[in-house]
């Protein structure tokens, strides 16, 4: 019953979003980083809607029900899976030391850390990194292109969208052959990620004057920071 209700609401949302995208597609406020602002704002509202009716409630329930050690175990498990291609990206970015460390993390955490449930590598001094193909492209000197809000995936740039396509293509979870397993793992990871973002979300709600532009500017700054591994060229003003 509840499920059906949510599905109907989701369908209405999708219809409303498609309609609004058609009508508002060309409205912009002239921000050079965001030429697609009209479309993006509609997509943003759509994603917020899906989050409010579907993803966030589940994440809140998950956060409330799951004991902290289990939560950490789930986050670690997916983090371990991700470490493999974080290492590959570090290698592509010409950072073999970090790539070796990432590979070491996978080896240690998959064995001593029991299939990645425990992050013993961090305690052993191998720090976790954060890399993806979008960052690799940035490292290679490819510009970000326009900011774009993707349906369901959320904020990206054109460059990071291309990166995302590769990230998904090599994602071990997306490549599991057994469909029910793949879907369950994907859903669990989605909810676990969302639950991890709940605290930051509460702070953004408090901070933002206009949530759309706040999230956009934060995203662009964050990505720039990540591409430069925490040391972006100091902004001049």
């Amino acid at each position, binding site marked *: 019953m509840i499920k059906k209700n949510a599905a109907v609401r989701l369908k209405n949302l999708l219809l409303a979003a498609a309609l609004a995208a058609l009508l508002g597609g060309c409205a912009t*406020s002239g*921000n050079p980083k965001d030429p697609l602002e009209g479309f993006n704002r509609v997509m943003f509202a759509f994603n917020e809607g899906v989050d409010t009716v579907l993803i966030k409630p589940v994440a809140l329930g998950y956060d409330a029900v799951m004991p902290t050690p289990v939560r*950490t175990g789930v*986050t*670690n498990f997916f*983090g371990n899976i991700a470490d493999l291609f974080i290492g590959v990206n570090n290698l592509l970015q010409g950072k073999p030391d970090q790539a070796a460390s990432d590979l070491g993390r996978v080896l240690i955490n998959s064995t001593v850390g029991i299939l990645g449930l425990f*992050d013993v590598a*961090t305690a052993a001094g191998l*720090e*976790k*990194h*954060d890399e993806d193909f979008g960052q690799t492209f940035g490292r290679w000197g490819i510009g970000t292109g326009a900011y774009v809000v993707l349906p369901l995936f959320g904020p990206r740039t054109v460059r990071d969208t291309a990166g995302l396509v590769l990230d998904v293509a090599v994602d071990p979870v997306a490549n599991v052959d057994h469909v029910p397993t793949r879907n369950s793992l994907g859903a669990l990871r989605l909810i676990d990620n969302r639950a*991890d973002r709940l*605290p*930051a979300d*509460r*702070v953004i709600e*408090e*901070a*933002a*004057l*206009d949530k759309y*532009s*706040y999230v*956009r*500017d*934060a995203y662009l*700054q*964050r990505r*720039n*920071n*990540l591409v430069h591994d*925490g040391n*972006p060229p100091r*902004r001049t*003003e």
Partner: protein
Amino acid sequence: MKYLLGLLAAFLLSISAGAAELAPDALVRNVTSEVLEIVRKDRDIQAGNSRKTLELVETKVLPHFNFQRMTQLAMGREGRQATPEQLRILTEEFRDLLVRTYSKALTEFRGQEIIYRPFKMAPGETDVRVRTEIRQTGSKPLAFDYYLERTAASWKVYDVEVGGVSLVTTYRSSFGQEIQRNGIDGLIRSLQARNRSSEIAAGAPK
């Protein structure tokens, strides 16, 4: 007369040098550890008691921030047209918004370990970055960087970057947008409205 002015200037300089003795990294470390120690022990704050958290931030953190500079940074170019009176009101409202945001972030703190990164400063430096890190299980450490400038009285924080995201300049496009549409007064009105709605929400029973 000239001699007197020179003397006065020398006197003022000596005061500022004396008062600025606490180095910026020591200042950040002292305030951070003191505040987090209180948060760690206080169950009300951990449960999200916003009045108590606000009090803590106002007494311990707020004196070390230069809100006027932060407001000017957030407004960027658009803000240069603001009159002193408008700037005063804007600074007040923006301060309330930032203090509430900071307080909210504090109630989300769960006893993670804070690392203070090595700090070097050339003599005579007036603008520095103090880097800290929050260690969190299962993810990359989150950088928490404080930008400080030397003022007459002491070192003051004028920006905080979390994971490379500036607490201040992230407002620049929303502020600029508002100023372009409705002028400086429009920005003041929207900040006031934002603050009032948060106060009402905070006053309502949880």
